[in-house]
């Protein structure tokens, strides 16, 4: 993937030399929407990066921005803002005035329509902080064959930062909801790529039971600072354990619905998988899809970075993160012999529900040569990560196959 991107960037860079104002022969029609200091991908120089983001993140797409974090940059227990992936569906709002920003609560199942400024949210409700794992539903899509269309995420569309805000359930209690409430949906201030101001970019949601969990936050801070612009400043939903697309950014409205929310990217095959397993490449009628809820158990090796060359005489420390959607990770193992044998790792408890769990171990290699280290987590219901790519689905969601890195021992 990275190789492809580099080739593309190199190609685009060459193209740019002969076509100022064009990218791959196309005019940069959305140039005016680019945040300051950001060049279209064709003009990116190596030293140019997204403001506030680590230079080694992998840019999959720049309109809209889709940027993933290499596994070895996710070694922190709490993901720093500069290493938090970006999955945008549209263009972030150009201006975000914290003082005038409001959150409206409405929909068929509220007892009243009510709006809050961020200041009111802070003063009216108790503030809570949780470390919450957010993973894009399409993380791992690049592993599927036949290829699924969309951003070809490899491993790094996942992060676990500390989020601070108020509980959605406290707000909904204040507003009052009716007994027929079944779902919530969000609306944000990002704008559609087409430039059509009336077109909703994305408006997803969760069942009311998930919305009313303690950890479902309306957050204004990440890691005790303002949320980065690309990650939803000044206000966003944060719902850990489910596809991160339910955690609406640049949040301006929550609707409480008496039906399953039918906003943009709730329907069709978006964030949905076949109800029943299908053969790879099979055409699946839309009525045979179901909405993805909790994400499956998964883990990453975050140290060392893949490609390490080490000497025979030393043990190698290995560590990483593991998470399991709504569940907890109960076991963590690694293999250096392609799954013939597995070695148990130290696994920490999550700091709170829906936070990822740090794991570590050390390994002694029996002889010199090429090795792959495979990592496998098991959730509290006994489900483990598959070593092979799991069930194919048309949109390439939920690839939770074992992460692996390559190591040479000399």
């Amino acid at each position, binding site marked *: 993937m*990275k*190789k492809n991107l580099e080739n593309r960037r190199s190609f685009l860079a060459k193209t740019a030399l002969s076509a100022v104002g064009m990218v791959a022969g196309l005019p940069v029609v959305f140039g005016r929407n680019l945040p300051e200091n950001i060049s279209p991908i064709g003009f990116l120089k190596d030293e140019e990066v997204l403001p506030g983001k680590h230079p080694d993140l992998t840019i999959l797409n720049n309109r809209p921005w889709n940027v993933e974090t290499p596994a070895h940059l996710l070694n922190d227990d709490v993901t720093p803002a500069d290493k938090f992936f970006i999955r945008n569906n549209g263009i972030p709002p150009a201006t975000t005035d914290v003082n005038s920003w409001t959150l409206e609560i409405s929909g068929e199942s509220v007892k009243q329509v009510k709006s809050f400024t961020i200041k009111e949210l802070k003063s009216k409700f108790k503030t809570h902080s949780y470390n919450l794992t957010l993973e894009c539903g399409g993380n791992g899509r690049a*592993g599927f*064959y*036949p290829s699924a269309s969309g951003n070809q995420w490899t491993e790094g569309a996942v992060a676990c930062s500390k989020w601070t805000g108020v509980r959605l359930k406290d707000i909904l209690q204040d507003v009052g909801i009716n007994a027929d409430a079944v779902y919530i949906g969000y609306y944000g201030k990002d704008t559609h790529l087409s430039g059509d101001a009336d077109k909703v970019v994305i408006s997803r949601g969760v069942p009311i039971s998930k919305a009313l969990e303690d950890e479902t936050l309306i957050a204004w801070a990440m890691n005790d600072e303002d949320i980065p612009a690309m990650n939803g400043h000044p206000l966003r939903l944060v719902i850990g354990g489910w596809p991160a697309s339910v955690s609406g950014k640049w949040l301006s409205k929550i609707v409480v619905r008496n039906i399953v929310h039918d906003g943009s990217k709730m329907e069709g095959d978006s964030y949905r998988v076949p109800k029943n397993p299908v053969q*790879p490449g099979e055409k699946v009628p839309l009525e045979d899809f179901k909405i993805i809820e909790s994400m499956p158990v998964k883990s990453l090796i975050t140290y*060392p*970075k*893949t*490609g*390490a*060359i*080490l000497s025979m005489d030393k043990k*190698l420390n290995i560590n990483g993160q593991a998470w399991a959607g709504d569940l907890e990770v109960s076991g963590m193992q690694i293999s250096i012999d392609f799954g013939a044998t597995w070695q148990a790792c130290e696994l920490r408890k999550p700091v709170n529900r829906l936070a990822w769990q740090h794991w570590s171990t050390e390994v002694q290699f029996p002889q010199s040569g090429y090795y*792959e280290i495979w990592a496998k987590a098991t959730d509290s219901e006994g489900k483990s990560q598959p*070593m*092979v*790519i799991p069930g194919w689905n048309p949109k390439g969601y939920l690839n939770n*196959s074992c992460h*692996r*890195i*390559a190591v*040479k021992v000399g």
Partner: protein
Amino acid sequence: MKNITVLITALIFGITSCKTAQQSVEEMEENTAAVVDGKDAITGLFLDENLKFVQAHCTGCHSSKLISMNRFTREGWKEKIVWMQQTQKLWDLGEAEPLVLDYLAKYYAPEERSLRRQPLEVKEWYELN
């Protein structure tokens, strides 16, 4: 790749002589009457206006299966022709060569395989101390 070369070598050395040095295209067309599943019944190769050149220059000496079991790019098939010319007494295909290559590259091109895991690609190896 190495294995395929060995295989081809083995098969070709098993052939004592070509049935005909260079059969006429007309003769070949007479032999391609029967069709099964879009393929020529005799050779099992895909029907195409260029098949006759393949029959004229290839399957006179070796089995058509040697073609149908393999997948190469146009450049890869060209290498096989050159190799056969250098070591297996294949003649100069003349004007037929691009047509033969068109045919081979069209029907017997590399296929993406459905691997459950791809080999790991390491962008950069580094010393870990």
